[in-house]
């Protein structure tokens, strides 16, 4: 036995009291009294995978978890569990992760730069079995059974895309992996490409077999340097191992891959613009139909799938479409990867079964709100999505549900917002992104976006009237209806959804010239609360525009006409004497 201790006790206070250390000392002390210090190691952990369950204690081996533990329980745990291997029944808690890692299973487990690691985890088994036993039709049927829908945001059934491309007779067909991830705060594709690139390549080879394509492109944005490097290595290794190129795994099937770098235009994630970009043209979307699966890259049938979609394919073939379809909800099958960010404790990449609620994601997986603030909304779908207010957080996550709420599933960005987030400001942020990223081709998006942003600026500056909201909505509707591609059709979503759920906040900006989240700088005023002020003069000395005057006898005042609302005084005051409203 090389283990240092016979037993390990992991503990953490998962409540808001933060008594981990005290409890640890107490536990340690009592173990010592029982003379267990050489047999049992007590460990304070940073995260125990449970939240808001009071003090949690986990004992190894045996993996017994106790929740809601108090000081009074320590003796009982020591006597029953540590000494006699019997559980303390009233404290027992069954740990169950709400995450389900299917696509991300090997991400963080295997060495992405070593093909053998992937092969050891059943990599390329799906490909092997397919080449040995399945027709292209079988593959498409399996995908149909699985119910897999595009994970890039559109949610189009993957099998249908493949089927359309398969049906067309052509001397050349293409598979494109869309890795032009661009939503602010979203990095699912990057992580998969960096952590498990072979799964994407295997998915692409399978797609190639299913539709009859022999050539594929991975379209990655150039900023993803590490992902590019790893995909390059992956392609090299796969070629070396006979998994790409002529006669894959000794079969009659040949398929090869190339990388194409995107220059960073968000719109190139739109499939027709992406194709134009690969062809060396300006990344402009073009009208559909014809859809790429009929007439795509260089006029040939082309399947474009997102990274996550492709990475899901090998697992589906390995475990069966029915298995995949058994995960998730009625309307949406399988799992989805989200990049959980914002005002949440555990920001990171999560994978959950479809149908999980947003509340579960934020509180059970995300560990709840940062700094204990109240949750205000969750934004999904990036700049094409919308905000979902607190009272709707129990909605099960799937394509249709989110759409009904005025947002979209999107590629998987999920940003948690608290009461310090101003909804006008949020709408402005996302719209600004779309205005900057609009390709400029079609008028409703190009001019409409610019004008909408103008109205939002006016509102946040306190210069708008109520009729400006009407004009704003009018442009939103026109852009939604008349824009050519998804970017313009969905860019009003953040505006419309904040207007839908937080109209009152807009009206406060307009009528009362107030921003309750104190985000809209132009609506803020700073003054000094004389009762708290200790006349230390630090604010005056730090004001960059000399807007604060006074002396230690008379006290200090902020000249609102000079104040540029930089917030410096607020930050430096040690006595909370600066009032910001």
């Amino acid at each position, binding site marked *: 036995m090389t283990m240092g201790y016979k037993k390990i006790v992991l503990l953490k206070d998962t409540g808001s009291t933060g008594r981990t250390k005290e409890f640890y000392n107490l536990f340690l002390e009592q173990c010592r009294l029982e003379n267990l210090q050489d047999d049992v190691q007590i460990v304070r952990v940073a995260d125990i995978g449970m939240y808001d369950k009071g003090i949690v204690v986990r004992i190894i081996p045996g993996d017994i978890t106790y929740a809601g533990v108090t000081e009074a329980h320590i003796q009982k745990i020591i006597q029953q569990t540590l000494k006699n291997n019997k559980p303390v029944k009233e404290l027992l808690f069954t740990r169950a992760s709400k995450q389900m890692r299917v696509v991300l299973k090997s991400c963080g487990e295997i060495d992405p730069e070593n093909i053998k690691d992937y092969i050891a985890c059943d990599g390329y088994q799906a490909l092997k079995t397919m080449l040995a036993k399945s027709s292209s039709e079988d593959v498409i049927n399996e995908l149909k059974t699985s119910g897999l829908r595009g994970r890039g945001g559109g949610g189009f059934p993957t099998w249908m895309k493949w089927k359309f491309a398969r049906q067309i007779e052509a001397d050349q067909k293409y598979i494109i992996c869309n890795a032009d991830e661009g939503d602010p705060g979203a990095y699912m594709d990057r992580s998969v490409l960096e952590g498990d690139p072979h799964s994407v390549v295997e998915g692409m080879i399978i797609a190639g077999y299913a539709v009859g394509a022999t050539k594929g492109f991975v379209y990655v944005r150039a900023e993803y340097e590490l992902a590019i490097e790893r995909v390059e290595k992956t392609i090299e290794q796969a070629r070396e191992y006979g998994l790409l190129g002529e006669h894959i795994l000794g079969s009659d099937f040949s398929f090869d891959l190339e990388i194409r770098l995107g220059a960073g*235009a968000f*719109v190139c994630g739109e499939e027709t613009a992406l194709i134009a970009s690969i062809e060396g043209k*300006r990344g*402009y979307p*073009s*009208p559909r*139909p014809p859809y790429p699966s009929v007439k795509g890259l260089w006029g040939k049938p082309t399947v474009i799938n997102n990274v996550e979609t492709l990475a899901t394919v090998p697992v589906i073939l390995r475990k069966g479409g029915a298995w995949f379809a058994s995960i998730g909800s009625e309307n949406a099958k399988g799992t989805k990867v989200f990049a959980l960010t914002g005002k949440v404790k555990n920001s990171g990449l999560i994978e959950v079964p479809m149908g999980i609620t947003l509340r579960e994601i934020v509180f059970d997986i995300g560990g709840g709100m940062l700094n204990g603030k109240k949750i205000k909304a969750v934004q999904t779908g990036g700049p094409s999505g919308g905000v979902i207010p607190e009272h709707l957080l129990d909605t099960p996550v799937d394509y249709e549900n989110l759409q009904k709420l005025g947002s979209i599933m999107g590629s998987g960005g999920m940003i948690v917002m608290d009461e310090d987030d101003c909804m006008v400001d949020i709408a402005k942020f996302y719209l600004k992104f779309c*205005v*900057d*990223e*609009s*390709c*400029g*081709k*079609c*008028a*409703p998006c*190009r*001019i*409409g*976006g*610019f*004008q909408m942003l*103008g109205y939002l600026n006016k509102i946040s500056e306190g210069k708008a009237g109520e009729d400006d909201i009407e*004009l704003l909505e*009018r*442009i939103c*509707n*026109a852009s939604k*209806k*008349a*824009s*050519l591609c998804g970017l313009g059709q969905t860019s009003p979503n953040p505006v419309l959804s904040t207007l839908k759920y937080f109209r009152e906040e807009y009206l406060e900006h307009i009528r009362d010239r107030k921003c309750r989240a104190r985000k809209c700088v132009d609506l803020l005023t700073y003054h000094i609360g004389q009762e708290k002020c200790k006349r230390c003069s630090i604010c005056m000395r730090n004001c960059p525009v000399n807007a604060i005057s006074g002396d230690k006898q008379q006290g200090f005042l902020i000249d609102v006409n000079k104040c540029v609302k930089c917030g410096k005084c607020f930050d430096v005051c040690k006595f909370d004497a600066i009032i910001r409203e």
Partner: protein
Amino acid sequence: MIQAKINGIDIKVKEGTSILDAAKKVNINIPTLCKHPDLDATAACGICIVKVKGGNKMLRSCCTPLEKGMDIITHDDELQEARRTVIQLILSNHPNDCLQCARNNNCELQRLAADFGIRTVAFPHVAKELPQDSSSKTINLVPDKCILCGRCVQVCQQMQDVWALSFLERGFQTRISPAGDINLSESPCVRCGQCSAHCPTGAIAEFDQTPEVWKALYDPNKYCVVQIAPAVRVAIGEAFGYPEGANLTGKLYAALRRLGFKAVFDTSFAADLTVMEEAAEFVQRFAHGKGVLPLITSCCPAWVDFMEKFYPDMVKHFSSAKSPHEMLGVLSKTYYAQQNAIDPATIYMVSIMPCTAKKYEIQRSEEMYASGYPDINVSLTTRELARMIKQSGIDFMHLPEAQPDHVLGEYTGAGVIFGATGGVMEAALRTAHYMVTGTDADKVDFENVRGLKGVKETEVNIKGNKIKIAIAHGLENVEYVLRRVQKAIAEKTELPYHFIEVMACPGGCVGGGGQPYGATDKLRVARAHGLYKEDDDKELQYSHHNPYIKKVYKEFLEKPLSEKSHKLLHTHYTGRPLYKK
């Protein structure tokens, strides 16, 4: 055939017909700003939206094919509101200075705004403030007025294969400009003016030179003479409400006299002269082996420019004969001046051309000053002339017809068909036949060279000699023809052609870049028909039978390809390749 409904009207159309075109068949005009019948739909403006009954998604009718069983609604509250908003958005970013605009009264945006009864623009006006580009002195770019429909870019890149114009920047900053943000004169532009002919607004227009001409006409020391190109007579009527293709030669002569021109010549006369020179040149190369084959026509200056830039290796194949209006220019300042004892220094020669490139041609080399003076002083487009006539108060419709001035005004049917694609070839063949055989061909018409097919290839039999010919119009069609020639030369195989005619503009000069707006294939055919009808009606249909041509040779030029004609009527070409391989 597809059966469907549009606004409740049953309709049957060919598969693949767009909803926009299908609607036209049942007399419904769906408004659009970007779709042009010559060009593929780009779906840039967002105004042609329609919806399917029961669906909530809007379709762009320009690029969506009508599908079986569709129930399309083209006009309702929601659609009109979206359209009205988009129009207002466009107007919010447009100078709206209609009164000072080159397209006043003839602007598609203006018309649309008028039709929709736009009386106010709800959104704040944001000017573009981009600099104009008049550097090419042929075409004016006014990017402020551009609505980014993309027609010019499509025309320049696809229809003309020149790639001078492109989109720069993105989003709200998007603009049209020569690629690399250089000015037009430094760009690959060949000045064909098709961009201006397709522009829906005043963003691209001809470089207006009417002020210079007015000044000359009012100058007592100037002896102003004028010539009109064949294609002008069948298009100018469109500016005065005549039916399509009306031939108004006599009225034009009368109007030009009233404008104050002392002599009115006809470029068709010089076309006869060009035929004499070019046919002689062909016979010399074909029958006597002097010079290389194929011979390629050179009367189109945009084509000449294109060839010098893009096919420098083919320069030696060009006919050295100048274009007709240049020949007439030099004769007016030599022969005509001598005959009428006028100081050639005082002669001010104005060409009325369907063409913007002619503005450039008149200064393209020293040989354009063969008379010792500028052979042509100013070249105006048909559009400029129409404005001058209107400005001068001439009641064009009711003018009695007039005659041209001798000797440089009389022409044959062969001269006037120069204005249509295939016309130069046909006229030259008529005379070449005579030059080879000494007799006229049994049949005057060479039907195979007529019509709007992009590349026309045929064989003509002259005295047992098979002459293989090709006619291309619209520069995109040149590549096919010249690649075949290059291949045959490189591989030393039989030449695919002996004689090639190229006109830069679709339809030839009748579809020229300086012609009245709104050219479509239907209109091009109508204009060409006007010319062919005049040919039929002419007593003389062979250039070599023109008595005035004979007279000029006898009195002045001696014979085709004489030393004098070489000095005055011929020119050189220089390869000026733009790109290195």
